[in-house]
């Protein structure tokens, strides 16, 4: 092992392909996006250098604020729903007495392997204001609470977030459950001998020991929420109006619909910075030190 680590040529040969591909596929487009954001450009014409004008325009664009707000709402609901329910389900499956563990574990994960398109079509049918399952259930139960789930400017973003939360909850559950399984049994036994209840055991032992896992889950959920695009594209097309736009949606609208590549790039840069800041904050405040047990 020591001999291998001292062989710099081998390390170079093994790491270079990955570094090269990463540079071409990730770093180069990022730099290009940043560079293009200083230009007025429709993708074909001669770009015109306008320095920070695109960023100034963003600050005066109502759609930008709608997109920021929607991204925040999406990320927040996604995080609470996925991490909350994912954790509760993992706690339940941690119990030995639970019947049909394997079936439950698999069924939680099924939505994850479905494509976003399939999931959206499924929920579009359920959300249909006239003939959809959800409103029909309310009707059968004689509830007057029937909604135009995707046609209401305030409700539609929440309705879409529920779909995304539901689909990838199983993914977060799998990570959390796997993390919980690594906690040594003797810690729980000690807590049991001390008379700790189940709830207290999880609050005082499981969750603190899972801090690193939760950090990863939190990053996945928040970044996934901030960069959301597919769900709204399929389910509402960003509408009604601009009510389900996110920054990714705004970027695509500007760059590929309005042919304003520079402005779209500026949106993309803000999105990248937003994700970067969120990741930094999470890494700064959650599980800073490595937990060993």
């Amino acid at each position, binding site marked *: 092992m020591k001999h291998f680590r001292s062989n*710099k040529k081998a*390390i*170079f040969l093994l*790491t*270079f392909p990955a*570094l*090269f591909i990463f*540079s*071409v596929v990730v*770093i*180069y487009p990022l730099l290009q996006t940043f560079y293009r954001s200083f230009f007025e450009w*429709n*993708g*074909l*014409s*001669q770009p015109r250098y306008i320095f920070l004008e695109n960023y100034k325009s963003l600050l005066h664009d109502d759609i930008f604020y709608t997109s920021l707000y929607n991204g925040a709402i999406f990320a927040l609901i996604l995080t609470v729903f996925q991490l909350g329910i994912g954790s509760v389900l993992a706690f339940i499956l941690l119990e030995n007495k639970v019947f049909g563990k394997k079936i439950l574990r698999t069924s939680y994960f099924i939505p994850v392997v479905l494509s976003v398109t399939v999931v959206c079509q499924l929920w*579009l049918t359920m*959300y*249909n*204001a*006239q003939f959809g399952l959800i409103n029909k259930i309310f009707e059968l139960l004689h509830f007057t609470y029937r909604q*135009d*789930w*995707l*046609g*209401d*400017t305030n409700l*539609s973003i929440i309705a879409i977030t529920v779909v995304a939360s539901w689909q990838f909850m199983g993914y977060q559950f799998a990570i959390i459950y796997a993390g919980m399984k690594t906690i040594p049994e003797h810690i729980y036994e000690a807590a049991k001998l001390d008379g700790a209840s189940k709830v207290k055991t999880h609050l005082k032992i499981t969750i603190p020991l899972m801090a690193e896992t939760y950090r990863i889950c939190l990053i996945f959920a928040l970044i996934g929420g901030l960069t959301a695009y597919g769900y709204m594209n399929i*389910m*509402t*097309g*960003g*509408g*009604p*109006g*601009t*009510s389900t736009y996110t920054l990714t949606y705004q970027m695509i*609208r500007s760059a*590929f*619909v*309005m*042919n304003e590549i520079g402005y779209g790039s500026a949106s993309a840069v803000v999105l990248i910075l937003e994700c970067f800041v969120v990741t930094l904050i999470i890494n700064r405040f959650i599980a800073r030190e490595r937990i060993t047990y």
Partner: protein
Amino acid sequence: MRKEFVKAISICLALTMILVLAACGKSSTPTASTNPSSSTPQATEEATTATPIAQEPVTLKLYAQYSVDDEKGSLDYAIEALKKELPNVTLDIEPFVSSDVLKVRASTGDLPDIMAADPGLVSVFSKNNEILNLKDYADVKSAFLDKLAPGVIPNIEDKDGNLYALSTGGNLWHLWFYNKEIFAQNGVKVPTNNDELTAAVKAFTAKNIVPIAMYGQAAWSIGSYMDSFVLRTNPGGLIELATGKSKASDPQNKDAITRAAELIKLGAFQKGSTSTTYDQARELFHSGKAAMLIVGDWEIPDGVKALGDKLDFMPYYPTALAGKEEENKNQLVAFGGGGGYAVSAKTKNKDLAVKVAAMLAYYQGEGRYVRQGHTDVNINTDGLKTEKPLDPVTEKLIKLKRDYIYHAHTVFADPKFATPFGEQLQSLVAGEPLTDFFAKVDKLSPAQ
């Protein structure tokens, strides 16, 4: 040792980045060579001197709608006809995926020789000299323009009289289709004016029947509905908002838009219409859950297949004020014009590619009419006979459309206006106050 290694890695990565940046950067040469003032007159000169077209085998790349049977039928017909006249030409067909594909290919200098381009793309490409101005090519005149129905040419030219695309289809009239049986069973009169339309909407909503199946996820469909009202009071139509000729809040538009919005509030569209797709709306209509559907006349074959003789369309928009039914009654929203086959400015065989594009555009129209029985063609069909008998709905349209006044739905051609305007239309359907709609749309209109 370690520092040296880090240095070596850093240098390698930096070199890689430089290599990639250099390789992916766009050369400035093509931009210079596609100067408008140099390319267009050259083409004109070549055309007027009628340079003989080479007879050696040539393969041209064609990016065209060629995915579903309907598209394949007419293009195959055109290719058969082309083979007879130009046997040396082979077409390498690339089925149309999206306009964005062409935008990306244009930016890398890889446009196909001939491409089906929508009006928005034609507008962008023509401004950037990516496509040829076909106006003065002799072959375009003889193989296409001379064979068009009267009055079509101004609709396919841009506002400066240039011709960048040869439309394969003709005027696709936007019609109000309805299910005769639903109207009859519910004792509702087929509306001829706004009052009767309002009564019909009220009657259908009371019986839990969707009055108009709307596919509002595509905002232009709401625009067509709105234009149906505006055209009855302002023959200029909604396009005036995009050109700045009039504003939404101007009297000739305001009343019509207000009436259209009031009907939406009454429940003219199904709930969730802004997230409803085209296919879903058609399904509502075809399955008898909706009484009306506003769509182009391309709907006729599928509509007849689904509803049989229950399908009909209103000869004129039922949106006029009572007593004013005759005013502007022939004004109809239509698609067509502005898009079609465009020829890359960088094609190696300019004259041949232009001639092939012109022939394809004509013969595809002929194929649509003769082989498929579609009437949405802009070629002169006098003397042509369809292979199969036409259905009664198509026969009715053929008789009526002679008097229809073409009104291009180009309000949705320029994305700079169309995108935010479409968003406002959706917001209006979702319940935004009409005053906000007028204020925001007025802001979008360019000053005259």
